């Protein structure tokens, strides 16, 4: 199997869908001729032409609004928000329009659309290039919310998303675009070439939405993570020697609660990770479900390791980022509890 970066995997998924389904269109800011500021669409306009892959004005609400109109007509738009931080102008179109169309028209109109966006910190982007808004999307009934942690999943999940009959928010952890990242920001770059999940079939395949992946089996504590934090969890487990089970959620909505429950029932302990600010983050939802379903199996409160409740600072990025030290400490504490 070829080895791919996450960028290449995402590009490959779009390439395949452009090829397979003439109704697929791709657009966004700098997405066309240039191929996207993160290069995810590089070469696609040249290959498929301007009518399939094109640039847009800098107006995220219009990008999603156009996509809704196209999807309702019968096309399959897959659009890019240049950064997740810039989806806010489009949040009205996403949450009040796209997510509701099927329900409010009783299925007369639907909205099969994918909105891709790079998310998370780790590139010194400051407060407007680092946010993780996944919790906001998971509060919207009618959306599906996906976040891969590696190229293999990214490609398979994106193909599933592009074939899904409902609107899907596809969050791409930008710190993982070129290689796995467990929190070691000393500058040593490890590419996806040296990671097993960097291998992915060249052709069409799918990873189903709504299914988590147990990325490490363990007995003592369950770690719930997604995106970059999966790798941070792995680093913390490696450093601590703790026998943790790491669940890579992959899809946040709908959530694979079965896999989560089975694990927590087994381990009796659970740590939840995310990079987003803590209060009302998606970790809260995970804890609410876990404590309800596994109450009688829990031996300690579920704890969360998250970004602080503050804007993502530029220079102090690593004091903000919930790195492996903080995760390790949480693991040690929960095992003592």
């Amino acid at each position, binding site marked *: 199997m070829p080895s791919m970066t996450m960028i290449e995997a995402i590009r490959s998924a779009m390439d395949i869908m452009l090829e397979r389904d003439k109704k697929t269109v791709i657009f966004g800011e700098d997405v066309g001729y240039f191929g996207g500021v993160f290069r995810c669409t590089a070469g696609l306009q040249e290959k498929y032409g301007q009518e399939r892959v094109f640039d847009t*004005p800098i*107006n995220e609400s219009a990008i999603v*609004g156009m996509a809704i109109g196209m999807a309702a007509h019968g096309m399959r738009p897959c659009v890019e928000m240049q950064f997740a931080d810039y989806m806010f102008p489009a949040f009205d179109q996403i949450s009040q329009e796209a997510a*509701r169309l099927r329900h*409010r028209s009783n299925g007369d109109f639907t909205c099969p659309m994918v909105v891709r966006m790079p998310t998370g910190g780790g590139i010194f982007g400051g407060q407007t290039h680092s946010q993780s808004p996944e919790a906001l999307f998971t509060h919207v009934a009618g959306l599906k919310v996906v976040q891969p942690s590696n190229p293999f999943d990214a490609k398979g999940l994106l193909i599933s998303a592009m074939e899904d009959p409902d609107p899907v928010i596809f969050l791409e952890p930008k710190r993982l675009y070129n290689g796995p990242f467990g929190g070691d920001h000393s500058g040593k770059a490890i590419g996806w070439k040296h990671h097993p999940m960097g291998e992915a079939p060249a052709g069409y395949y799918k990873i189903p939405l709504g299914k988590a992946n147990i990325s490490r089996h363990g007995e003592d504590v369950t770690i719930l993570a997604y995106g970059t934090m999966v790798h941070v969890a792995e680093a913390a487990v490696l450093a601590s020697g703790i026998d943790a089970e790491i669940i890579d959620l992959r899809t946040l909505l709908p959530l694979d609660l079965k896999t989560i429950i089975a694990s927590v029932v087994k381990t009796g302990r659970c740590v939840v990770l995310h990079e987003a600010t803590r209060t009302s983050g998606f970790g809260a939802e995970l804890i609410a479900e876990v404590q309800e379903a596994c109450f009688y199996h829990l031996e300690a409160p579920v704890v969360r390791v998250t970004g602080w409740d503050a804007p993502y600072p530029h220079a102090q990025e690593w004091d903000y980022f919930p790195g492996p030290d903080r995760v390790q400490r949480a693991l040690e504490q929960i095992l003592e509890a």
Partner: protein
Amino acid sequence: MTQLAKLRFPTPPSRPGESVDFSHLLISDVGQLPVPKLDLSAEDSAPYAHGLIRVLDDNGKASGPWADYLKATGSVKMLRNGLRDMLKMRAIDQRLHIAQRQGKTSFYMQCTGEEAIGCGFARMLKKGDMNFPTYRQQSLLVGADYPLELLIGQVYSNSMDPLKGRQLPIMHSSREYGYFSVSGNLGTQYVQAVGWAMAAALMKDDGIAAGWIGDGATASNDFHGALLTASVYRPPVVLNVVNNQWAISSCTGFAGGSRKTTYAERALGYGIPAIRVDGNDYLAVLAASKWAIERTRKGLGPVLIEWLTYRVAAHSSSDDPSSYRSKDEAAAWPLGDPVERLKEHLISIDAWSDERHVQAEAQVLDEVRVVQKEVETHGTFVDPQPMSPVDILRDVYAEMPEHLLRQRKELES
């Protein structure tokens, strides 16, 4: 001493008890504007954006180039049907407004005074075209011969409601009849219309899209997004602005409407040609719609139409306009009433009479009443027929995911 900046606050044509002043309205005479070529440019459309396309004068006489343009395809029968459409629209509004007062529905919104616009525009569309209407564009449904029982069922949220009671009354949806699901959020759907039109072009069908927005809602951000994307990609979309002078209690001045600038002119800065049309003149509506739709379908790019009209009724059944404007405004509205004007015209060309009018009014009222009665047997708001609560959870997704299945259990327990 330096002169200091002072904010300006727009004022309406009247406040309760005051006399009405509509002198600020720019109204050209009938016949002043020729019918332009279909590929009219934004620049050349300036007189159309500032002026007013009219066919009927104040005495119901049709004249000028737009009258001739219409005659080429139109017929007297078409006008009589148009009158019937408008009478039907008015009858529907009246009946459903009363039904709301009787508690048979929770909410209603009338389009009184604006009937010509949707009734006329819809007659110029083809199957496969798609309107993106606001809540006050029900006349498009009447002009598309939408089954009355569906229209009324939706307002009653009963078992005849094609939307299963999910939507507020008046927020219809019908793919088949070219009426996109109304969201209730202002502005959002204007840019969706652009997207639909882009899809039509990309998929090489010959459909067009028509966006609809109120004068008040042109203030919303997505108005700009729609004009801009239409200007950049030039898809087949007609962008309609229904300028009825009011947005609930705020006058059109709060959306930037003024003596000096029209809404149509806002399109020019985007390089989109625009025309301004007497929306209370059914013949002008037909003629302008025909021109704009034909142009758009031919791939000549987007066009904006400002329909000048007046919101005669309250904003909605929850509103009482007497607290913010003079009761005399509707009567003082210089462009009159669309039904009266068309009636007068038809009578003047001996194609109609007062007797036939009275008859026709009675007939449509009867038609509406009969259907209404029948629909009421399927439940009303005061006397609902049980629906399955589980329907709430259906159609959130194509398939019900597990967390909704769990909630369904809870709901049924």
